[in-house]
């Protein structure tokens, strides 16, 4: 049901043109020693060319698993997949390993969270870049290295020819993340998945990296999936936002809709916990009370219920992801009436989650 809602809205937003990537009812489960963990539980979304979709949520909500599953990086003997992810006529979920390999790095590229560990420590930068280029294009070693140099230059690395011979540990964190981005760009991908690309970096470098992502989108017209826990990052670059909680999308809408008319209490909590430059800074940033549920045995009904200060009887039943406000593109999973939501999300003149204030105080 939730799948239908998202895909119908995707058609509307794609302006008649088929979206770059359509994910329908994606489910990913891992068999672990604690039993079956449903890491992603029926997620649907789409990404168009040239737009940035942000997937937001706390760690362990399934957002990274979603991203990695699109590239088949979560495949393994203990993983179970369901649903579809259509990209250029290929279903990424059921595609063969070889089919996926051709797409990886060429048409869909990924940038990972920690640039400190994401590069091979005992290989020089140049060969690491060239390896990817040569995997997808029939070029010689020298040509590939030359292209690698051009890429480093493009992402703003000074003295790129020298850096090609550097080992990862000889570069700063920001520099390494630029190398990762250069790597991702090396085959002109149509879709870029950036998994927390700025989390491990300083604030100033964060801004530079985000600028790179923005430029990339403008220059190449690629679609971007930005996976992050930081709504501040989202505000900078995203066009649309999907908020994930416990393996499910709980709210989906345009950037403005999510920031100015958020419908789900979890989104309120996330919004309440970001530092905002345009508002007076509170003494302490409120956090959402409690911890995310275990995905091995998620709570019945609304998954946010145990942490939600506004929960009532109906919440014992899982609310579907559907349009409850606006013109059908703003979706959420909350039973509260819209008027009540608008009243309850006001905490001290800002959007926030009431219980969170209590817990933080």
């Amino acid at each position, binding site marked *: 049901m939730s799948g239908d809602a998202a895909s119908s809205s995707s058609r509307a937003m794609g302006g008649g043109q088929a979206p770059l990537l359509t994910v329908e009812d994606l489910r990913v489960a891992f068999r672990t020693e604690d039993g079956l963990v449903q890491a992603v539980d029926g997620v649907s979304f789409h990404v168009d060319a040239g737009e940035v979709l942000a997937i937001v949520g706390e760690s362990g909500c399934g957002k990274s698993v979603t991203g990695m599953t699109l590239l088949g990086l979560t495949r393994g003997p203990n993983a179970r997949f369901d649903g579809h992810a259509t990209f250029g006529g290929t279903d990424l979920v059921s595609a063969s390993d070889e089919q996926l390999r051709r797409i*990886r*790095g060429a048409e869909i590229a*990924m940038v990972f969270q920690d640039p400190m560990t994401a590069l*091979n420590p*005992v290989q020089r930068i140049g060969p690491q870049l060239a*390896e*990817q280029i040569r995997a997808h294009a029939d070029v010689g070693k020298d040509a590939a290295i030359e292209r690698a140099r051009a890429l480093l230059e493009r992402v703003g690395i000074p003295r790129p020819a020298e850096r090609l011979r550097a080992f990862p*540990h000889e570069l700063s964190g920001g520099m390494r993340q630029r190398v990762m981005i250069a790597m991702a760009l090396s085959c002109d991908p149509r879709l870029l998945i950036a998994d927390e690309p700025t989390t491990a970096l300083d604030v100033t470098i964060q801004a530079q990296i985000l600028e790179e992502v923005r430029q990339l989108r403008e220059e190449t017209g690629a679609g971007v999936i930005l996976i992050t826990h930081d709504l501040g990052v989202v505000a900078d670059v995203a066009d649309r936002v999907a908020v994930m909680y416990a393996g499910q999308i709980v709210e989906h809408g345009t950037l403005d809709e999510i920031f100015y008319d958020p419908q789900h209490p979890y989104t309120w909590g996330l919004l309440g916990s970001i530092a905002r430059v345009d508002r007076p800074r509170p003494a302490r940033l409120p956090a959402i009370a409690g911890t995310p549920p275990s995905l091995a045995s998620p709570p019945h009904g609304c998954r946010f219920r145990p942490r939600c200060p506004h929960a009532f009887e109906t919440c014992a039943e899982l609310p579907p992801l559907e349009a409850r406000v606006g013109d059908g593109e703003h979706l959420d999973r909350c039973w509260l009436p819209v008027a009540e939501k608008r009243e309850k999300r006001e905490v001290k003149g800002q959007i926030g989650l009431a219980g969170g204030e209590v817990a933080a105080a």
Partner: protein
Amino acid sequence: MTRFVVRRLFSMVLVLFAISVLTFLIFQVIPNGDPAQRMAGRLSTPETVAAIRRTWGFDDPLWQQYLTTMKKIFTGEVISYTQQVNVLDQIWQNLPATLSLAIGAGIIWFVMGVLFGVLSALRAGRFTDRALTVAALVGVSTPVFLLGAVALYFLAFKVQLFPNGGYVPLTQDPLDWLYHMILPWLVLSVLFIGIYSRVLRSNLLDAMSEDYVRTARAKGISERRVLLRHVLRNSLIPIVALWSLDFAAVIGGGAILTESVFNLQGVGQYAAESIAQLDVPPVMVVVMLGAFFVVILSAITDVLFALLDPRIRLSG
């Protein structure tokens, strides 16, 4: 880099010196071990014993005895107490057997260890992995001399497939040499194959969950290349280190048990026999030779590593 090498060399010399002192001292704590008495035999007069004592310098202060022994070792004049033959000549005679054992077995155990380790890691949790795990654990749980004795009994005595121990020089008859070496090689390798395959398996599984391997996969390079270039290459580094040390120890007389069981007349067996006779000079030389190989090869490995893994250079 130069500083790193110099520092490594300096500590190497220090360890070698300490080893020579320690070895010398170990044999000084033997109260009934008066070598002069034993050399003179049972029916000796106190005068002969005193004379032997004087000529061999057993009356000198300990430090002087140590210096004399060391000087003799470096000038190649060190003589054993019991046989009264030149120890270095003796070792030189025994070295080919030990080298034959070390090189052959070293190649076998490295290749098989890597092969089984990779196989085990790729099939982690499945039947192949479990079978190899059990085999490896049986291998590391069996004493090499027992394995050697059992192998000799069944393969050399019952079915006369192999010779009953002994060593034939390579220069004398290469085929006969091979014929005599195969069983010792295999027996010595069993334990190491068990260890290496287990270490490599866990290194590989660790490496497979590294972020950079995920990155490599995300690049779209072939799975084969991911495994060879990124997983195996990085996991092999510690295995090579382990190998060089074990290899050095075997050259330096560490394979005492294997050499004794197969009666290879190698350096280790020479040391074992000398120890049994409380013959200090050969033991000192062999132990120092062994430690020398271990220390030198570990220094070489450290430097090689610094070249292979650039991160080490920083901490060094």
